[in-house]
């Protein structure tokens, strides 16, 4: 079996969950991977301090798309305060595959966009 391109990763890549746009939305974030020109945007709808609904859009590799898809399921319903505390380890663990230094940026692109939308902190991860 392939270490990186596990079946579930490819499944999320080909049929991503929560892919698209959300209108109207309360928060939005947009991130680029300057190395490859990939782009990932998120729309978030908030209710009672929680993520009520979320969609992501853009284009990217299997790793960035699968990360966004897998994370989207966890993020729905999450308290906004908790979103601000999510770190890289959370994402990598959730992804469940060994990620090389070069592919780490791909894996974290979505969380960067989500954190930016929620906390306004675009510098993460510094």
């Amino acid at each position, binding site marked *: 079996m392939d270490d990186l391109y596990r079946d579930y990763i490819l499944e999320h890549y080909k049929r991503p969950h929560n892919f698209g746009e959300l209108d109207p939305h309360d928060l939005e974030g947009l991130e680029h991977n300057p190395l*490859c020109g990939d782009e990932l945007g998120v729309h978030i709808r908030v209710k009672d301090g929680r993520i009520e609904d979320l969609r992501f859009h853009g284009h990217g*590799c299997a790793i960035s798309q699968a990360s966004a898809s897998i994370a989207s399921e966890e993020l729905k319903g999450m308290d906004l305060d908790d979103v601000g505390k999510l770190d890289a380890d959370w994402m990598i663990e959730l992804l469940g595959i060994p990620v090389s230094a070069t592919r780490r940026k791909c894996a974290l692109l979505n969380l960067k966009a989500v954190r930016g939308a929620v906390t306004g902190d675009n510098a993460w991860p510094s």
Partner: protein
Amino acid sequence: MPPVVESSLAVKADFPIFARRFGGRELIYLDSGATSQKPQAVIDAQAEHLRSHNANVHRGVYALAQEADAAYDGARRKVAAFVGGRPQTTIFTKNVTEAINLVAYSWGRANVGPGDAVLITQMEHHANLVPWQVLCRERSAELRYLEVDERGELSLEALERELARGDVKLVAFAHVSNVLGTINPVAEMTARIRAAGALSLVDGAQAVPQMPVDLQALGADFYGWTGHKALGPTGIGVLHGREELLERMEPFLTGGDMIASVDLQSVSWNELPYKFEAGTPPIAEAVGLGVAVDYLSALGMEQVRTHERSLTAYMLERLGEVPGLRVVGPPEAERRGGLVSFTVEGIHPHDVAELANRGGVCIRAGHHCAQPLMRCLGVGATARASVGVYNDAADIDALVDALQAGREVFGL
């Protein structure tokens, strides 16, 4: 059946990096467009210079310093002769990026102003785009782009139309595109540019390593290239310029070595080419580059071009066997340098490069420092395979096998 490709210059053994193994596997290097591998002769020449001839240049009277001077000046003569240039008008820089910046600052700041235009093309590397964008913004000039057609080529008629507007001061363009592979008709373009009273700057980064370059025949006012793509070391690039222009230009960087004399409040510049080489230059790197061009000359640049063209033809043919693979740029190898950019339907270019890597093949993926071009092509990124003198048909076969296997991993 793909055409039988005999083309192998059979020089892999000259490049020690190919003795390395990665997880027990040989190195299959198809990323020479990013940087070339180095022959033993270049590595040895640099080491030998540092071991036995190292001193600073231009200031010593002792024997060792004279050896260093001779080595540096000798390298410049070889590098100039390699492309039909003259030593006085051959300036060593850090890379081609610095060569282009030199012109954008020294010539551009003095000669481009409000109402003027700089014309570049949609296929430029950021190195030949950003310096002009910054110049035009600073000087309130207009930056215009020549379009790339669906075949990945420029149109001479479009160039003439732009020049006819009468405001173009300089046209900057790549000799060979690092994404499309397109070989631009440099001589035809520079003739039109000269006739219109504008200057030309040609980015030869992808051309000099691959084909015979004769500056006289090309007729560019400025021609830059970079050592590390031409079997030479990193840290050294070259700018060739027309003497009258270089004479009139102010220096780019200032400091030691580039002055004739300095008073408390004034200074006069050193003669060419030293006026443009402030500070201690890349001496060992120049020596290495001198040996790199010797190596290429010994192979024969016509042979190198023939080799790269037939490998490119083979690559186009074999990549065509991969379902869903789309090549960008001119369809014929005659019109291209030794690189092919492509996309594979259903697999992002980063994953294409990762999958190639599983087959032991090194290719590059991304926007290749040409984001405006990527937008024209309607893609975010491409994968790119590029060949060098050491590649052979088996390397291309390995790439195609890896891509086919990769499609299976992705369930395609």
